[in-house]
């Protein structure tokens, strides 16, 4: 099992570095940009906070973008949430289906290793890569805060990134289950799903009638503005996320474990 885990990790580490440098680098650039836009932000913060539903959607009513924490939660939070979700979707959708897509399933599954062990090894590789992606990004963000000599709200920062890891693992799990069904790598489907869930989360924040249904999207419990303003996470949405995660992994096992594998 450890061999397959190591193989998957090695196969994806370049992609991990590229995504971490791109997403983390963009976040770092945003943080560093803050000192040069801080003055103009002070004037804009009030306007942004009074734009009704738009302000709610992007969390600018709860937090002031004139402070680094507020700026981080609204700007970097969006970049990291979307970037991380996409990275998780890319990992998940390709992890199982790539064997049939690349015609390597006969090679891999004729080796003396149970299919369930392969499924677990690949899943743990997805989880590890997501964890490392977040650690690398967090390192870059912390570097940004230190460069500006700003205080990091440690509790909120860790809570937000913890929820982001959880959200990405949930997205990775949903895509992993899809991957178990597919004979081709459906990257577009995974990325489309992330954008759809993000868009749905925005809509539920803008449209009051949808507020009760916002727990469906994992972006609801991993929203930076919510976490940084309240210092807590939404319990129901997190529990639903955990159930979706477990069911997705179970489905991946059931489907892939019983499927006839194409050559």
């Amino acid at each position, binding site marked *: 099992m450890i*061999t*397959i885990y190591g*193989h998957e990790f090695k*196969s994806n580490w370049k992609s991990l570095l590229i995504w971490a440098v791109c997403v983390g680098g963009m976040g770092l650039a945003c943080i560093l940009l803050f000192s040069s836009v801080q003055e103009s932000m002070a004037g804009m913060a009030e306007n942004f906070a009074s734009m009704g539903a738009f302000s709610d959607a992007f969390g600018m009513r709860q937090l002031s973008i004139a402070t680094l924490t507020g700026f981080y939660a609204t700007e970097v939070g969006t970049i990291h949430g979307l970037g991380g979700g996409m990275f998780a979707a890319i990992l998940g959708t390709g992890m199982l289906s790539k064997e049939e897509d*690349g*015609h*390597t*399933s*006969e*090679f891999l*599954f*004729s*080796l*003396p*290793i*149970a299919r369930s062990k392969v499924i677990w090894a690949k899943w743990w590789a997805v989880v590890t890569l997501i964890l490392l992606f977040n650690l690398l990004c967090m390192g870059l963000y912390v570097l940004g805060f230190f460069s500006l000599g700003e205080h990091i709200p440690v509790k909120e920062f860790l809570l937000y990134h913890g929820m982001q890891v959880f959200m990405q693992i949930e997205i990775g799990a949903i895509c992993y289950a899809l991957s178990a069904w597919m004979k081709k790598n459906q990257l577009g489907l995974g990325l489309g799903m992330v954008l759809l869930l993000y868009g749905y989360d925005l809509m539920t924040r803008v449209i009051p009638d949808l507020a009760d249904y916002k727990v469906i999207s994992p972006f609801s419990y991993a929203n930076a503005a919510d976490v940084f303003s309240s210092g807590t996470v939404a319990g129901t949405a997190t529990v639903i996320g955990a159930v979706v995660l477990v069911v997705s992994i179970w489905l991946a096992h059931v489907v892939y474990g*019983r499927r*006839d*594998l194409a*050559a």
Partner: protein
Amino acid sequence: MKQVIEINHLTKHYGTHRGVEDVSFCVKEGSIFGFLGPNGAGKSTTIRAMLGLLRFEQGRIQLFGKDIQKDKEAILREVGYMPSEAMFYPSMRVKEVVQLVADVRKKDCREEAAKLCDRLQIDPEKKIRELSLGNRKKVGIVCAMQHRPKLFVFDEPTSGLDPLIQREFFALIREYVAEGTTCLLSTHVLSEVKNHCEKVAIMKEGKLQCVDTVAHMTKTSAKRIRMVRDGKQEDFLFKGDLNDLAKELVGHEITDILIEDPSLDEIFLHFYQ
């Protein structure tokens, strides 16, 4: 002698499409067994069911006396399989693929792998994406042989290999078989079966047509008939009682007739058609 492969009444359908129906045969230890049939005959389906890659509706498959559906991992430890496509991870080097297989098998195969790479003339430093089909086949052969398994399963192994490497490949098989390894050779190249196999199973349209020794098949009752009947030249393979043929010829003008044993190629093709 022990049976290494025992397939009993194997039936597999892909939805409404035919896979294989009621296939049964055995392969004894230390032999080279030919598995012959045209494209789409069901050879690969049988092999893939045999290795636990496909689930099947009916029948039982035992390798080394163990049921593939119950002891798949233990069985595959003793099997070296080379799929017909020979596809590997394109970004990896040959040596990394070979090492990955050895690591999954938890065996140190470096010495044997180096010997095989040398005999098959493979550069272990090359990336898989740089290899031709023939060279990928060679990597497949190394992966299947390096752990010295008890059973080889080769699915159309020689397509893409040049004649010299084909000769080396069969020399390697004979060396391992001499040490007790069994080999199932799936192919549609008649000469490979004729030259290297003791026994052969012939598949056609998902059904087993015949299982026999190559030597016995040449002594079949089928005859090649060449004759000139009513002024027309005829040439066909006749299987049955020659008295029936004689009765059929009564009333016709036979100016020339030759009855002979068919070649092995003709016998195989007779089952194909």
